[in-house]
C-alpha cells in the first residue's frame, strides 16, 4: 500500500513516534491518582496507524499489549470507520469486546485527524484499582462469571466532538467504590491522549503522508526481523506442557498449558491444542492476552530490540481452540487471568529451550502475586481504601548467569510501592518484613533468583484480604540439571493466638482483625545446570548473603559451610570431592 520509504526516514520517524508514546506514558504515571498507575506504572501507551495496527508502544509491561492491539479494529467494526470524527475518544474494558485483559484495565483511544483525514490513533490502557464487582478491587479469586468482576464497558464514546460524555463518566463513577480516585485516573488518561493527538498532528504537518507510509514500514520491519531469526532456526516441532495450580476446590490442579511450536522456514506457529478447557473461575486468559503472551515470548527470544508493534504478531500463527483456558468464551470470568497467562511464556520457553541454548532462562516466579486490602477509612473524598500491591519473585537463570532476585517476570514489570509511600497513604497498614526468602532460588550451576517474603500487619478491624498467586504447587522448573525453585505461599498470623494458617492461592475477601499479619511468600526460579558444578566460593557467598542456607548448601550443592564466630567459610575437607550426589 504505502510507498517504500527510505531506511533513514523510517528511523527518524520511529524516534518521533516512540517519543510520543513515552510522553503520554509519562503524563499518566506522573499525574494519575491510584497507586497502580502512579507508583506501580501499570500503564501502557501506543501510537496506532489508521488501519488499527499498533506501531510504537512503550516498553512498560507486556500484559497490556494485547488490548492495545485489538481496540481500534473493534471501534471500526462497531461504528464504521467513516463515522469516526475529530474530537472523539473511545473507552472500553470488556475483554470480549475490544477491552483489556480484565475489567479493571481500561483502554482509551483517540483518533488523530489532520483536517478531515484520519492520520492515526493515540491509545493508552491502565489498571484501575476498582470498577465495581463482587469484591473491593474488583478482582476476586472465586468469580464464576464476568458479571461478578465489575462494570463492563463495551467500546463506547467517552468524548464526542471534543466534549466529554458526562453521562458515561457519571455511570462509571457510580460503579466504583472509589470515585475520586477513578475520576483522577480517567482524567489523566484522557489528557495524555489529547496531548498525544496534538503531537501526531504536528508530526503530520511536518512529514505529511510519509508519516503514515512510515507506520506501515515500521510494522513490516518488525515482521521481517522476526522472520529473519526464524529462518535461521532448525525446522521442527517443539512442545512443552507446564501447569497452573488450579483455582480452588471446584477446579483442582493440574491445569495443563500445552504448546507445540512449529518452525518451518521463516514461519512460526504456536498451537495450544491440548491446553485445559476453560473453567468457571477467574483465571481464563482472554484471547488478546494469549496473543500478548506469545508476542512477549517471541520478542524476548528473537530480538529484544525489535520494535514492539503489530508486525511481531503478523510474523506468527496462533492456534488456540475456542473454549480452552487460553481462548475462553463469553462470559467466562477472567479477573485473575494474569496468573495463568504468566504460564504461557513459561511453556514457550520450555518448548524452545533446545534451540535457544544461550538465551533461554529457566522458569521464573511465573505469577503476579497480588495482595488487595480493603477497608473503611477515608482517603480524600473516598470513604474506603483499597490497597493493591503486586509482589515480585525470582527471575530465571540462564547458561551464563544467576537469575535475578526479587523481580517481576514475563508479562508484568510493575514497580513496588515504596513502604513509606504506602504507609503515608494507607495508615492502617504496617510493613513488618520485605526481604528475599532464603532457599527459594532453585539450586544450579547458575542459581535461580529468589522469591520475596513480605509481612503486612493490619491495624484496624474489618479489613478484607484478597490474595492471588500461582506456583504455590507446581515449582518453577530448572534446566540442564538445575533444581526447581521454591513455591509461593500465603499465611495469616492471627493476632488473637499467634497461630499461623496457610491460605489458598486464590483467597478472596477474607476478613482480618486488628493485629493480624499477612505473610506472603513469592515463588523463586529454577536453577540452570548441575548444582555440584557451582564453584564453592559462590555457594559460600550465597550463604553469607542469606540466599542459601547452610543445610541447602550441603544437601543441594554438596558444599559444607563452617562457621567461625560471625564468619562463614568453606569446610574443604568435609566438602571433599563434589559431583557425585
Amino acid at each position: 500500500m504505502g510507498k517504500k520509504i527510505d531506511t533513514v526516514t523510517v528511523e527518524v520517524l520511529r524516534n518521533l513516534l516512540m517519543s510520543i508514546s513515552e510522553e503520554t506514558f509519562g503524563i499518566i504515571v506522573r499525574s494519575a491518582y491510584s497507586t497502580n498507575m502512579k507508583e506501580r506504572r501499570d500503564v501502557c501507551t501506543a501510537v496506532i496507524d489508521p488501519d488499527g495496527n499498533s506501531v510504537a508502544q512503550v516498553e512498560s509491561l507486556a500484559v497490556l499489549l494485547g488490548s492495545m492491539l485489538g481496540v481500534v479494529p473493534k471501534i471500526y467494526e462497531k461504528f464504521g470507520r467513516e463515522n469516526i470524527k475529530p474530537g472523539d475518544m473511545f473507552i472500553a474494558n470488556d475483554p470480549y469486546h475490544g477491552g483489556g485483559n480484565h475489567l479493571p484495565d481500561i483502554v482509551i483511544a483517540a483518533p488523530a485527524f489532520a483536517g478531515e483525514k484520519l492520520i492515526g490513533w493515540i491509545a493508552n490502557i491502565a489498571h484501575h484499582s476498582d470498577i465495581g464487582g463482587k469484591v473491593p478491587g474488583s478482582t476476586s479469586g472465586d468469580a464464576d462469571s464476568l458479571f461478578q468482576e465489575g462494570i463492563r464497558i463495551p467500546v463506547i464514546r467517552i468524548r464526542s466532538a471534543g466534549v466529554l460524555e458526562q453521562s458515561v463518566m457519571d455511570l462509571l463513577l457510580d460503579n466504583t467504590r472509589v470515585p475520586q480516585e477513578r475520576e483522577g485516573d480517567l482524567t489523566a488518561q484522557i489528557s495524555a491522549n489529547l496531548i498525544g493527538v496534538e503531537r501526531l498532528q504536528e508530526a503530520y504537518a511536518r512529514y505529511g503522508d510519509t508519516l503514515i507510509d512510515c507506520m506501515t514500514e515500521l510494522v513490516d520491519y518488525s515482521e521481517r526481523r522476526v522472520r529473519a531469526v526464524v529462518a535461521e532456526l532448525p525446522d521442527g516441532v517443539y512442545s512443552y506442557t507446564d501447569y497452573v495450580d488450579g483455582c480452588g476446590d471446584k477446579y483442582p490442579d493440574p491445569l495443563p498449558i500445552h504448546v507445540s511450536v512449529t518452525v518451518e522456514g521463516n514461519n512460526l506457529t504456536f498451537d495450544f491444542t491440548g491446553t485445559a478447557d476453560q473453567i468457571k473461575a477467574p483465571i481464563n486468559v482472554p484471547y488478546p492476552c494469549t496473543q500478548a503472551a506469545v508476542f512477549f515470548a517471541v520478542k524476548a527470544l528473537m530480538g529484544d530490540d525489535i520494535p514492539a508493534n503489530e508486525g511481531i504478531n503478523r510474523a506468527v500463527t496462533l492456534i488456540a481452540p475456542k473454549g480452552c483456558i487460553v481462548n475462553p468464551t463469553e462470559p467466562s470470568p477472567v479477573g485473575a487471568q494474569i496468573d495463568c497467562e504468566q504460564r504461557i511464556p513459561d511453556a514457550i520457553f520450555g518448548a524452545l529451550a533446545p534451540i535457544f541454548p544461550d538465551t533461554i532462562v529457566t522458569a521464573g516466579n511465573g505469577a503476579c502475586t497480588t495482595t488487595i486490602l480493603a477497608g473503611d477509612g477515608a482517603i480524600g473524598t473516598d470513604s474506603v481504601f483499597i490497597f493493591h500491591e503486586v509482589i515480585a519473585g525470582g527471575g530465571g537463570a540462564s547458561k551464563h548467569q544467576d537469575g535475578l532476585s526479587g523481580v517481576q517476570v514475563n508479562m508484568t514489570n510493575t514497580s513496588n510501592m515504596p513502604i513509606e509511600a504506602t504507609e503515608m497513604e494507607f495508615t492502617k497498614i504496617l510493613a513488618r518484613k520485605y526481604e528475599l526468602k532464603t532457599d527459594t532460588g532453585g539450586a544450579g550451576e547458575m542459581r535461580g533468583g529468589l522469591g520475596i517474603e513480605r509481612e503486612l500487619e493490619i491495624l484496624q478491624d474489618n479489613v478484607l484480604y484478597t490474595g492471588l498467586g500461582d506456583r504455590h504447587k507446581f515449582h518453577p522448573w530448572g534446566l540442564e540439571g538445575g533444581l526447581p525453585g521454591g513455591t509461593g505461599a500465603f499465611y495469616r498470623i492471627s493476632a488473637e493466638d499467634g497461630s499461623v494458617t496457610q491460605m489458598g492461592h486464590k483467597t478472596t475477601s477474607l476478613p482480618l482483625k486488628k493485629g493480624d499479619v499477612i505473610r506472603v511468600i513469592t515463588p523463586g526460579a529454577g536453577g540452570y545446570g548441575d548444582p555440584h558444578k557451582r564453584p564453592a566460593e559462590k555457594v559460600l557467598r550465597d550463604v553469607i548473603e542469606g540466599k542459601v542456607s547452610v543445610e541447602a548448601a550441603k544437601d543441594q550443592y554438596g558444599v559444607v559451610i563452617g562457621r567461625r564466630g560471625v564468619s562463614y567459610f568453606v569446610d574443604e575437607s568435609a566438602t571433599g570431592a563434589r559431583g557425585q550426589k
Partner: protein
Amino acid sequence: MAYMIGVDVGGTFTDFSVFEHESGELFHYKDSSTPADPSKAIIQGVLAVLAMKKAKADSVSYLAHGTTVGTNALIEKKGAKLGLITTKGFKDLMEIGNQRRPSLYNLQAQKPFPLVPSGLNCTVTERIRYDGTVDTPLDEEETRQVVRYLKEQQVVAIAVCTLFSFVNPVHELRIEEIIREEFPEAYVTISSKLVPEFREYSRMSTTVLNSYLGPVMKKYVNNFRNSVEGIGIQVEPYVTQSNGSIISIKETVDCPIKTAVSGPSAGVIAAAYIGKQCQADKIITFDMGGTSADISLIENYTPQVSNERTVEGYPARIPMINIITIGAGGGSIAKIDDGGALKVGPKSAGATPGPACYMRGGENPCVTDANIVLGKLNQKKILGGRMDVDLELAKKAIQTKICDKSDLNLQQAANGIITVVNSNMVRAIRSVSVEKGYDVREFSLMAFGGAGPLHACEVAKELGMKEVLIPPHPGTLCSLGLLLADTKFDLSRTMVLDGVAENVPEIASQFESMTAQGNGLLDKEGVPQERRRFEYFLDMRYQRQNFEICIPVPAGEMTAAVLEQVLESFHAEHKRSYGYCKKDAVVQIVNYRVSAIGIIDKPDLKPEALRPETNLPDPIAYRQVLFQGQEYYVKTPVYRREDFVPGQSIPGPCICEQMDTTLVVPAGWVIHVDGYHNLKIHDEEK
C-alpha cells in the same frame, strides 16, 4: 594582579579558564590529563599559567575545579568497602530496589553491581511509623553488636538508613552516636541528614552511594589541598556540585554524592551566562563530544534542576542540573541491522580505535567518518591541524558496512548517518522541551563541545528553531562555567500538608528553620551576610497523586496571599506539564526546599565595539560539502573563526574552523558576530 582560575578535568585533556580582574582578560589553556592522580595535571597547569603570566601563586584569588574522582570511582567500582544499617526485616531493599527487572524483553539484563558487599547489609530492631511515633524502640545493644561486626569485617564506611527517619530521625541519630563510640574512624552517612525525604529505596540508595564515595573523596581532597597549599596558593579551592554551584573542597567530604556527576553542569552554567550576553533567555544547550551528547533547557538564564536521577543504575536524590545524556557523539558507530534499518550508536568507537578515518585500525563507520565524507569536516587534518585523518578509510568503512548491506550509495549513506544521529538529538531535545510543555521554536540552540557546532544548524532546522548560538570557545565551556558559579546548598524536608491558609504558619516555620540551617552552612563557608541569597520552593501535587511538581516560592514573608499565588503557579505548571489542572481540588505540599546561596565575584567581560563595515575575511579554502537534504556537493567557503570581527555578518553556506570545533552553516542561515565574539546564526530563509 589577581587571577581566577577554573579547571575542568576531562578524560584526555584538562582545560583551564583564567580571568585577570584588572585587565579584564579571559584566556584558556589546555594540558594533558593525568588520570592516575587528576590533581597532578591541575597543579602543573596552574603553575604553567602562573609562569606564563610571570605571577606568583598568592596572586590566585580563586580556584575551582570539577572533579571526576567520584564519577571514576563509580565507573571503576572502586568505592569504599561499606556496611549498611537499616530496619530489621528490610535487609534486602538495595537488591530488590523497585522490583522491576532492568529490561522488559532482554532476558539477560543484569541489575546494577552491588555497592554493599555480601553480608554487610545489617539490620537493627527498631521501627518508626509514618507519623513519627516510635512503634518499636531501637535495640541499642544489638546496634552496638552490629557496629562491632562491621568493624571486624574491616569496612571503612557505614550508611545508615531506617524507615521513616525523614519524619523522626531519633533512631538514626542514636545509631550514629553508637558508631562514634564503637568505631570513630568509620566514614558515616546518615540518611535523615543527607536527604530527609520519603521513599526509602531512593533515600537509602543515595545514602549508600554517598558512603561508597566518601573515603575516596576524603583522600583526594586531602591530597589536593596539600598540593595546592604546597605551591603557595592561599585560597581554599572550590569544587563543582551537580546542581551547578561550587562548594569549598572541605565540604565535599561530607556529601561527595553531590559532586559525583557534576561533569557537564559547569558547561550549562557557562551557557546561561553566554545566553545573557546574547540576550537569549530561552536556550537549549547541546554539548556533543566523542561518545555522548548532553542536552538541557535554560529559561530566564536559569538552568532547570531535577531532584532525582540515576547514578550507575541507582537512584540518587540529589538536586542536579537536569541534563539528558544520550549515547550519540562523533565516535558513535553506524550499522545496518538484521531488518535492514540504519542505526547509529549508542556503541562508540571511543578514542581508540576511534572512527575509521583516525587511522588507528577502526573499521566501523562513525559519525565523524560521515562528516568527513560529506566535507563538513576537514578531510586531511582536524583539531586545528593537530590530527591527521584519512578520507579514503572513512569512505571504505561506510561502503563496506553500510552501502554493501543496503541500497544506499556512499552519499546517501553518509547523509543518512547524520540524519539518524540528528534524529536522536531531536528526540532528546523534544524530551526536555516539547514533552515538558515548552514550545521549542521559541528557544535558541546553544551548541558546544567538539561536535555540537557541526550538527547544530541542521538539528535546529529539524525542530523549527530559528537561532543557533556558538560561544567563542565551544571546547572550554566547562572550565569557563567554573568561573561563573555561586556557592549553593540545597536543603530539603518532607512533611505532607494541605495547601490551605491554616497551614501557612507551619509552612513559614519550616522555611524559617531551614533558612537558619542554610545560614549555618554559609557561615562555615565564610560567606558575608550581604552576599547571601535564599530561594524557596515547594513540591506540590493534587491530593492522591504521588509525583510532585517543584514550584518556586517568592522570598519574603509567607502569607495566605503568597500561598494563593504559589497554588496558582502550581495549577498553571500542572496544566503545562500534563495538559490539565483542577483548580477546585485539594493541593498537598510534600517537600520543602531551600537553596542557600553565597554570591561569588565573577569575571566582568566587556563587549568590543561592533565594526560591521569591516570587509568579510577571505576564506582559507573552499571545500565540496554535501548538506542535509541536498543531492549535490556544493563548493563552500571555509573560514577561520579568528578572522571574524564583531558586527560582521557572514552568509551560509559556509564552514568555520577553529581549534576546538568546526561549525557548519547551511544555505539560508547567516552568522552574526557579536561584541563578545559569540556567533548568532539565524535561519533567514523565507
